[in-house]
């Protein structure tokens, strides 16, 4: 039989009030409160505040939702449906003219004058050029990551980040500056412990100020996942790993680079 703990922290008390404390500590906190009436009273007051808050604002949940809010979702939904329908029509027309099979809902980027036009192609070329390099894969190594990121950010005129891809098995090798279509491009290289490489291509000169969804393109033997957020276009490329695995890696980068 152990003595009740006497080192109960303020954080423990708060967590106790919220039911966030692990089971194993609850009895200790309860014992502490039994012998510390001031704390007990305080925690009780916190609980009451939470209850009062819930009951004060509960009525909002039962109010009818104003029509203008419902309309916001419906209107946006219609716009989205119209956009997809538009892509399908353009795609069908292209398919008819060229006699191609339509591979997906969305026709190729170039065909629609899309915000991401040329992005996967250029990213794939950069990947194919630099990823086989043994001695000079990057200009600035990951040992100087902070410098690398601030240098590339300055050149591109936007705050960049090198995503952490350890969770999917890739560590940063470093990066370099590349010439793009209309200006500088940032190129980050990652490597797994078996030596396969993935590159992240970032440009800040996408003409139409429009975001796109996550997309895939196969360029020669390089797989590319890419997307555009406002003016910034991102592409994650590899020629060494399966498309499915690359999707994992690209997703990890995407989540970090485009927080909601």
């Amino acid at each position, binding site marked *: 039989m152990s003595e009740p703990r006497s080192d109960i922290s303020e954080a423990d008390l708060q967590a106790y009030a919220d039911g966030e404390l692990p089971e194993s500590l609850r009895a200790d906190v309860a014992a502490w409160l039994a012998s510390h009436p001031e704390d007990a009273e305080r925690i009780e007051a916190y609980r009451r505040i939470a209850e009062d808050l*819930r009951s*004060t604002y509960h009525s909002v949940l039962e109010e009818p*939702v104003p029509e203008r809010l419902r309309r916001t*979702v419906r209107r946006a939904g219609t716009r989205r449906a119209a956009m997809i329908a538009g892509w399908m029509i353009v795609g069908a027309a292209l398919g008819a003219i060229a006699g191609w099979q339509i591979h997906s809902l969305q026709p190729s980027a170039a065909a629609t004058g899309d915000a991401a036009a040329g992005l996967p192609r250029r990213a794939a070329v950069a990947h194919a050029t630099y990823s086989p390099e043994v001695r000079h894969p990057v200009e600035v190594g990951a040992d100087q990551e902070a410098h690398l990121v601030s240098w590339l950010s300055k050149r591109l005129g936007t705050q960049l980040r090198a995503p952490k891809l350890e969770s999917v098995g890739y560590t940063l090798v470093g990066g370099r500056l590349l010439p793009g279509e209309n200006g500088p491009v940032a190129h980050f290289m990652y490597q797994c412990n078996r030596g396969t490489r993935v590159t992240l291509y970032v440009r800040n000169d996408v003409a139409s100020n429009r975001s796109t969804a996550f997309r895939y393109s196969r360029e020669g033997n390089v797989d590319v996942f890419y997307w555009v957020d406002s003016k910034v276009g991102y592409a994650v490329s590899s020629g060494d790993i399966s498309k499915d695995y690359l999707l994992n890696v690209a997703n990890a980068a995407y989540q970090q680079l485009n927080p909601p």
Partner: protein
Amino acid sequence: MNEAQRLVDLIPRLRRYARALVGDRATADDLVQDTLERAWAKLHLYRRGTDLRAWLFTVMHNVHVNRVRASRPTDTLEEEMPELAQRAAQGDALLVRDLDRGIACLPPEQRAVLLLVTLEEMSYEQVARTLGIPIGTVMSRLSRAREKLRALMQGQPVAAKLKVVK
């Protein structure tokens, strides 16, 4: 569309949180509307299968921070101060018993944490993810918010208390 329906289903919770966050109904619903619009525009960034509610609250938090920044550059707390001080000068009992007003007296970042924990009943970890702050910060803000609110509800001298805590 599936996500549209889920968004509509979450509107009452967004409204409840917004009401507690900003006080009056019209401003709260404006905040909800901006949130829904932004959520739609950014829906491609939402990862299917993850917690849509938490994601929406993150969107709302970002929208709110931007709105506050755009509309009033000064801190909310600073703005509330003169009114409270004035009450004191009038020899009022200086009691703030109304919960609504009590919440309004909290600094915005503490208010957000307290409301997510109590109204939305989010875990500390969910709050940390929603607001993009470390879990330790969630706990310290929560602790300060509660203590301040408790003092306010008990009618302790507000202005003096605020200065101490700040």
